[in-house]
């Protein structure tokens, strides 16, 4: 979802000064909202598996999720700024 938000942001920026509203809404929702929701559920799922004997800490996935959330939120908020700019015209 973070990558999707970045992709949408790239497409939108490439079309400046025209700003497609639908694309920016998609980029905003996927990056700033869905990305965090997905990460939260990942962490909840991870925590609920801690009681299993076969549970192993996967720091790689944790880092990936953290980076993805950060990137997603940044891209999502960038889309939000573009969306706000378009709606403010």
């Amino acid at each position: 979802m973070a990558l999707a938000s970045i992709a949408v942001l790239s497409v939108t920026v490439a079309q400046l000064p025209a700003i497609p509203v639908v694309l920016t809404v998609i980029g905003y929702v996927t990056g700033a909202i869905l990305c965090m929701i997905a990460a939260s559920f990942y962490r909840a799922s991870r925590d609920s598996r801690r009681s299993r004997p076969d549970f192993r800490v996967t720091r790689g996935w944790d880092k990936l999720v953290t980076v993805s959330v950060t990137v997603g939120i940044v891209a999502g908020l960038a889309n939000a700024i573009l969306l706000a700019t378009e709606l403010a015209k």
Partner: protein
Amino acid sequence: MSVLRWRNALGLVLAGLALGSGVLVPAQPALAAELSAAGDAAFSRIASCAAGSDNVLASIVVDSSGSLAETDPSDERVEAVKVALGALQQIRATSGKNVEVRLSHFSNSLSHLTAWGPAEGEHAAQIADVADTLPRLPIGSTDYVDALNGSKSSLDDEAGLVAGTSCKIMLWFTDGGLDLGEGVQANAAAYDDLCRAQGIVDGLRADEIAIVALALLGEGSDDQVSPQDREKLRAIAEGSGDGVDQCGTAPIPPTSMPGAYLAAADSGAIARLFAQAGALIDGAAKGESYTCPDVEQCPDGVLRIPFDSGVERFRVVLQRETAVAPILFAPTGESLQLGAGENLAFGGAAVNVQEVGGLMTVDVTAVGPASAGMWNLSSDPSTTTLIDRYYFWGVTLSVSAPDGLYVGEPSRLRVELTGPQGPVDPSSYGAVDVALQTSDGAIPLIAGNGGWEGTFTTSASGASPNITFDARASATSAPSGIPLGPVSASVGLQTELKPDYPTLSANSVVLPTLQGTDPSRGEVLFKGSSQGDAQVCLVTSEFRAPETAGTVSLVGNRDGECFVVPAGQTLPFEFDVQAASSADGRIDGELNFAIASATDGPDVPLTLPISGTIVRPVDTLRQVLLTALFIAIALAGIIGTALVTRHLAARFVLSTDTRSALVPVIATSTGVRRRDREAPLFDSANDFRGLGLARRGRFTRFETQGVEFGRKVPVWPFSAATGWASASGRVIVSSGGNVARADGTRAPVEFPGTLGFLFIADRGALLHDRPEVEGFVLLVIDARDGVASVLPQRQEQVNTASWTTIVATAREAARTVVAPNTTARGPGGNHDEQSSRVGLPTAPTAPPLHWDEVLGKEPQPTKPGESSDDQLRGQGSPKPPKSVNFWD
């Protein structure tokens, strides 16, 4: 002056050959559709672009829509991509330019399969590997809009990254018409978006991106795509098609890049189609196709190839059914068995052979006069070989104004052809035709002095500071009469004014961005003539803008305004441009001036191009508020999600199988042993008791064996909730040797609550110096197969725990007096209260013991509700743990 690329057209070259082989009529074995005049001119322009640029950027975009299963069932497009790659490698080899390529595919949308990289080495190998995956790509509809927009962005981005100028080419392979999969109306709307003036296709052309559409017209394709759809595809590439409306601005402006449409008759010809596109981009004309063997064209499998001096190179592309290597015979009598990868001198020429995907490409480049004559290519006569043949002229075309280009005055123009060895001598060809024109019409030329010359006078309607001249040349070689070219060049020459006229400081004006309907100011400087004052009049002004901008004009209706430019002085001319409505887009226009002479010369017209961008203005306050709102919504969503997931996840998970055991122990720094009898620490049969649950559940609190379990939820939503256990004021320590409060009244517990163990002791039992400490160990187990199945591991966990840490932590906690309503952080755990050490410990009074019965004593009476321990021990009905609303 720019120097443009040569190209060569191939015609019926064998007719009337001196060697008397007779007229060979080209067969129609493969490439069905003829290249149109517009396509031919476009390839000439593309070849010029490739030759005149530092980089050639080729975006190969392959259709992966569902109809490919019908039109290309044998996945010929895979080899076709490899052939195109080989053709691009050939351009790299012959031109020495930086040739970069990227492979993408499209159906519902455009997806890039590789990054940009050179058309050779590892990147080329990667593209070849990725091309093999094309048949496995997901299928869908055919969205031209996304394919063109995505490819444009990709090409523009890469052009911005590489050094120098770039020639941008989109090699666009598709089998069908535009089909978004959303009905006829949606398709029509998308086509309108593509083809309206200043639309998507115009955008690509204005960006000088050449669209080379490679269409597959295979069996079954008629069911998928109508002839009208194919003509629409042609129109997208070339600007117009039979029976369909024009696509984009027509005619295509000289400053825009035209495209070309090529079609393959069947899937087997796709690879040759790509090879043809590569040859044309490299400067050849559409070649002729032959089927060998053929009684007339290719007797006994031998194709005759005339090669005259004045022709730089010929190329044959062979599609064979046999592994027998073809043999090339030079006019010198030498022969060469052709094999892939060969690059050698042979017959007075340099021969290069490539073989990709069943196609063999042979390039023969003249390096000396010995190469001129009749070459023969012998293929296996027992099988069919399809051969395409191309000629490359190898000249460049230049346009110049040796004496300057004066506005209002006749000016001499000169056109020259230059080959690899210098200026081309027209007399060495059978015929050479050169044409030169501007937007005002053709300029007559006369041959002379090794070139061609003509006279040009700027039009009366206004001369631009920069005039573009389009030159085009074609020829036939001698003695074989091979048609060569056309080659084309588009050259911009700056106009000048005579000394008795004022001059302009700029060739064009770029306006500051127009913010909605606010005017934007431009300025140009007039420099006065040294011969006296002169008058300048603004005759007319014209602007073009997006329709939504309405009328765009000069503020104040200044058409007809005149002013005098003093001799030798500089006079600024300011003007404001304003749009009737807000819009986003580009504005272009001209200011047409009439400039008078400072002496007695006639007035001369001069056109000043104006360009700029218009955007709708932004209400900054609204923008900030909306941004804040969106950020707030995002934060609310993030915090809400964090809260919900934390409350859902941070719970004790207990089931009907959950059992707990509380055993009296004596703990030392070296370990722990049972206090009441000599026996293993836990007895699975007698020590464990159920929690009395009717079903599995997730709880925020529960009690067992007099120990209460709960959780602490921090205010900060992104901090994890933590579990704790409390033993009615006694010191309680986790298996890791941690306490959650400094006075030991709480210990940290990991969710789901059935991990680790707890050590519990009265404070009095800890306030002495003896090494042994009396206490209890609480173990909670949730095992579907019964306690005995996991008890050995859990008991081992107790035995191997760091009892040094556990006992030390318990003793320290017992000595700690807690300051009320404060919190502190102790070893390894979170605390609710701030602790402080005092000289002598004062332990809080503990409630009555609930586990005395474990030691064989009668349980102490407790108040109802003080603890559920008694209830859990069988006094009345067991009470299940509390299930608390997760918002609790």
